[in-house]
């Protein structure tokens, strides 16, 4: 048990601990009261997309297959108007060593930790990223500690997280399992300070650079297979790294006209820090509980500045329901022979609906899959949902209500996306920016420029919104 004085003392050492454990002095990038030099943060790492690919190939990360889902495309065309129904491809990221695209994020962090002579790495994550860091650390001969939010006050573990615990332990990592709550950050800081290990945060430039290879690779693969860049790439969106890194990688490969769509599972109404809601979510990632707060204010993370800034990179932001993702997961297994997900299939559910908006010759790429297994499977998630009193039934996905009803579609034509209005997201971002300023804070021209880049808008737009807020 800790006394509050110790808690506060540790929290006050936060920025020093962060600086030591990431090896980046973020203060040198500040250019305004809000603005910072985002691109320089990447340049100064010394890595680019080619060095990242080389490092990843040394641990068998990347070079995953790009598979055309012909039967799913045919099914989407049944539901589409004549002439509509784009070709759907999927990047089989489950083929990475620990079973997800998170190996790309972990590889550069672990490489950097080793280069800087750290003896171990620490990551705060309940998801695939923990297994990825543990796997990469094992290969690099570094010690690894993973801090998870894992169980509720009844001691009931989220099945998907329980599987992650097992996977991390299988790679020889120490796993600290906590009950629900944001004070996980305190434990995380304490571990960093005590061990002096590297903070393999999901939100450093290393982590985002590691994903750039995914966008880059899929653009080149598509170019080679079909002689064109994809028209649309859909990424499951949570903390923002997937959308940011993929989009940056696409641009670096020259695929500047490819539309990048962020897709999240709608978990609106459920509180992320609620002990009661914890086991009623049925998804541990790829959901709006992360994607909304992180898109509208990315710097709420375990490093001073988040290198994942999704609002800069998304052309469109959509949500799908839990039931639609479970439905498409079943279809992926039974029509394409691929048992994957479920959380990673969020973007596949969105692709199924969006394919029907596009002409037949257009190409959509779903940029990830993840491994599946005990706990990390629709059966496990839906059995827990039922145990928690959540109704699971077939019907119209419009009746889905997070935490209360999971409605599995009755027909593929019922899979739809709901567009998140980007203007609202931008306004919310700017609202947070103004809030962060506090009393008397003054925005310079550099800050306004930065906010325009952050929200992919203009200085005029930023000024207008801010004037309206004040």
């Amino acid at each position: 048990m800790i006394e509050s004085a110790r808690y506060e003392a540790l929290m006050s050492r936060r920025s020093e601990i962060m600086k030591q454990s990431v090896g980046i002095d973020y203060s040198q990038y500040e250019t305004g009261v809000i603005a910072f030099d985002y691109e320089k943060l990447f340049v100064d790492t010394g890595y680019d997309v080619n060095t990242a690919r080389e490092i990843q190939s040394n641990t068998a990360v990347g070079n995953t297959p790009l598979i055309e889902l012909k039967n799913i495309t045919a099914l989407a065309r049944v539901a589409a108007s004549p002439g509509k129904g784009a070709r759907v491809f999927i990047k089989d990221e489950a083929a990475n060593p620990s079973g997800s695209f998170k190996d790309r994020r972990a590889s550069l962090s672990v490489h950097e930790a080793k280069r800087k002579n750290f003896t171990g790495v620490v990551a705060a994550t309940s998801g695939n990223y923990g297994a990825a860091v543990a796997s990469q650390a094992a290969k690099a001969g570094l010690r690894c500690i993973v801090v998870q939010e894992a169980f509720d006050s009844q001691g009931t573990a989220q099945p998907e997280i329980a599987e992650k615990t097992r996977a991390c332990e299988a790679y020889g990592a120490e796993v600290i399992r906590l009950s629900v709550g944001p004070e996980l950050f305190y434990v995380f800081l304490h571990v960093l300070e005590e061990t002096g290990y590297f903070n393999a945060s999901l939100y450093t430039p290393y982590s985002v650079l590691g994903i750039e290879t995914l966008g880059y690779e899929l653009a080149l693969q598509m170019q080679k297979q079909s002689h064109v860049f994809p028209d649309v790439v859909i990424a499951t969106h949570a903390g923002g790294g997937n959308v940011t890194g993929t989009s940056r990688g696409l641009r670096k490969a020259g695929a500047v006209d490819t539309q990048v769509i962020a897709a999240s599972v709608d978990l609106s109404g459920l509180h992320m820090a609620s002990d009661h809601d914890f086991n009623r979510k049925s998804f541990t990632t790829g959901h709006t509980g992360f994607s909304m707060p992180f898109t509208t204010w990315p710097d709420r993370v375990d490093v001073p500045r988040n290198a994942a800034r999704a609002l800069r990179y998304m052309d469109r932001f959509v949500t799908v329901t839990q039931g639609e993702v479970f439905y498409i997961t079943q279809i992926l297994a039974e029509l394409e022979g691929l048992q994957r997900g479920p959380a990673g299939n969020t973007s596949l559910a969105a692709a199924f609906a969006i394919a029907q908006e596009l002409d037949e010759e257009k190409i959509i790429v779903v940029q990830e899959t993840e491994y599946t297994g005990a706990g990390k499977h629709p059966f496990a998630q839906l059995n827990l949902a039922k145990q928690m009193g959540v109704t699971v039934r077939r019907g119209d996905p419009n009746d889905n209500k997070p935490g209360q009803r999971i409605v599995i579609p009755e027909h593929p034509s019922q899979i739809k996306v709901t567009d998140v209005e980007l203007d609202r997201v931008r306004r919310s971002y700017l609202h947070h920016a103004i809030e962060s300023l506090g009393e008397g804070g003054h925005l310079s021209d550099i800050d306004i420029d930065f906010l325009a880049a952050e929200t992919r808008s203009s200085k005029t737009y930023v000024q207008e919104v801010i004037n309206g807020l004040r």
Partner: protein
Amino acid sequence: MTELIETDTWVEIHTIILPAGERASQVPKDTQKVPLEMRAKGFLVEPAALGDEVEIVTPAGRRLRGILSEVNPAYTHQFGVPTPELSTIGREVRAILRQRGQLK
């Protein structure tokens, strides 16, 4: 007499990090009412009985103290029973494709 668990046995310890009522201010009410708990696994340093306060050495080599809660803890996550709401989907979509001549 309670049987002692031998040194170097793989065990789990349990500790309370923050008691109920002393949680961070931004935490919702239901979470305020429960403690922040921690569970960690490692190798037992000295022989001890379940419920004793013990020290373990974790796979990362750290020494942690807590109440000995489990010996060689099982992984209990599983698939469970198949979900009837999912079990006919394959059949349904194959029938749709067959109707359109997309599948034999």
